[in-house]
């Protein structure tokens, strides 16, 4: 079954007199377990498409089906619930709660989801280890590097074990080494947990990891190719949570 099916999505923005095209009849079908990259020049509609797929924004027309369920007509509240329970998000940067520690950031979302405290603690410790942050659980965001912060965000996104993770420019503020480590992490999660990843990016380092590359321009899909991920040699399976992934911390 397809994880996401978009059909004829259109979205325009009004800015004063101007009408800006965000999405222009975008149709796209994404299978469960894919690691897909949306690329394209600035303003081509990557973020708009990602937001529509994640229920952050509603399209003007067209349909979006997530795991067999239409989401384009859902109410704000239902969309919030969908985002909370079924989708993991990683944004560009500065998306942690600054006054909470790494562990608390991860636990906070689980608390909102209504998980019992003991379960929250256990899972938070588990995912933080999985993203290579064991030992840094009590650090606040300001006490961590950009790469570490993004890994906390990833831990937060996967803590509730969603089948879909959407990431918008996750490496934009990272140095080359951190970006590579983050992508290694995505790749490992994608392989080990069969989580579907959709990433919007300009970053060639990110695209190198994609198994499918969707190129956009002016709100349209202009290219859609499968590729052999070349980010890291996929000899054997890189096991996550080992120092090879989180050595930086």
């Amino acid at each position, binding site marked *: 079954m397809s994880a996401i099916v978009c059909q004829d999505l259109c979205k325009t923005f009004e800015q004063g007199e101007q009408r800006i095209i965000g999405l222009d009849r975008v149709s796209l079908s994404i299978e469960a377990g894919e690691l897909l990259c949306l690329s394209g020049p600035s303003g081509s509609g990557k973020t708009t498409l990602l937001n529509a797929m994640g229920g952050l*924004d509603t399209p003007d027309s067209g349909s979006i089906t997530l795991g067999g369920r239409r989401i384009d007509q859902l109410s704000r509240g239902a969309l*919030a619930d969908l985002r909370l*329970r079924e989708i993991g998000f990683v944004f560009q940067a500065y998306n942690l709660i*600054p*006054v909470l520690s790494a562990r608390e950031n991860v*636990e*906070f*979302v689980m608390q909102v989801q209504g998980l019992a405290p003991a379960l929250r603690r256990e899972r938070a410790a588990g995912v933080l280890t999985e993203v290579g942050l064991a030992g840094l659980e009590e650090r606040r965001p300001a006490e961590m590097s950009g790469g570490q912060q993004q890994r906390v965000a990833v831990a937060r996104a996967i803590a509730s074990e969603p089948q879909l993770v959407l990431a918008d420019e996750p490496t934009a503020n990272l140095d080359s080494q951190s970006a590579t480590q983050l992508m290694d992490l995505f790749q490992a999660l994608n392989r080990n947990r069969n989580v579907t990843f959709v990433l919007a990016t300009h970053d060639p380092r990110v695209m190198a990891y994609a198994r499918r590359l969707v190129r956009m321009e002016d709100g349209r899909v202009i290219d859609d190719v499968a590729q052999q991920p070349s980010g890291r040699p996929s000899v054997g399976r890189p096991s996550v949570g080992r120092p090879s992934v989180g050595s930086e911390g």
Partner: protein
Amino acid sequence: MNITWRLAWRNLWRHWRRTWLTVGAMVFCNMLLIFLISVQLGSYQMMIDNSLGAFTGHLQLQHEGFDEEQRIRQSMPAVAERARQVQELLGAEAVAARGIAYALASSEERSFGIQVTGVEPEREPRVSTLPGLLREGRYLSGADGEIVVGALLARNLRVAPGDEITILGSGRDGSFAAAIATVVGIVDSGIPDLDRALAQVSLPWFQTVFSMGDHGHSVVVRLPNLEQVPLAVTTLQALRAEHPELVVLDWDQLQPGLRQAIRSDMASAWVMYGVLILLVAFSVLNTQLMSVLERTREFGVMLALGVSPGRLARLVGLETALLAALGLGLGVLLGALLALYLQQAGFTFPGMEEMNARFNLPERIYPPVTLASLLWGPLTVFLGALLAAVYPALRLFGLQPVAAMRAT
């Protein structure tokens, strides 16, 4: 501690100077309110005690209609016995019987209308402060033919202790009542109306002069405090089974103006307190609005993750409640210390001493520390602060996650 509470608490200290300033404003306002309210309630207490203590007492037993009409025939039989009965029923010390008649008093030179009160000389000082306010001479000994008069009346009649006064009036049976009394003391209560008409004689002699038999007009009760009045009134209602012609009047019925005066004074005070509380509420509103606006991006991310606007609003509410609780706790603590000090040391403001001396009030107020005076103001400030958070919290419902995350 729950993560939401931790989050709220830490958010409070992101701008610790701003938080302390807001808390400081609340603490100052709370202390001011505690001070003003306790002085205010203290002065009401004093006003009531003094005006009830002078003559009327906290409650009286009378013949129905006497309070309005003051007719000599509206009397109760065996008044002294009745007074002892009331004393027993209430277990109260300060109970006394009185008889009241209107008469013409003449000295050698002049005549004036007076209210002659027959009192039990050994009991009267317990229900009334007047016997203690003698300017000259002594109080009644209980012997026939003695009279104590108010200072203004003495001046009008031009009499001094030792002089004689002729009393002319009519008795209970309509007969002619006449007597000659010797002035033994002069009372200066500071209340002109009282001092102009006051004339006290002993009750047995009063009953003889005015052909009262064992009748009298009222049984006066003074209680330790106002709170005991309602219960005492209820207790005394039992007497009406045997004597349906009697009524129990409480201080509010005996001195109708008193409560009214206090009410209107309170109303104007509350307006001032309201303004004070409004100012503090606006300072909280300002703080919380700023704190919400500067976190737009952060709230945008939380909304994007699926946290509901309602939960974010509750977070802001919790932050405000913590802020307000700090103001409440510190304010009540410091305010209580201040109030306790004033309760011990007393309080006076310029001009108060002279004014109080004229009306026979104590020179200083010793405002009693009560739960009401400590909590009323600060709790209203607390509620005002919570209300002030409503607007900033409501703004969160209008936030769109995507737009909020784009905000700088």
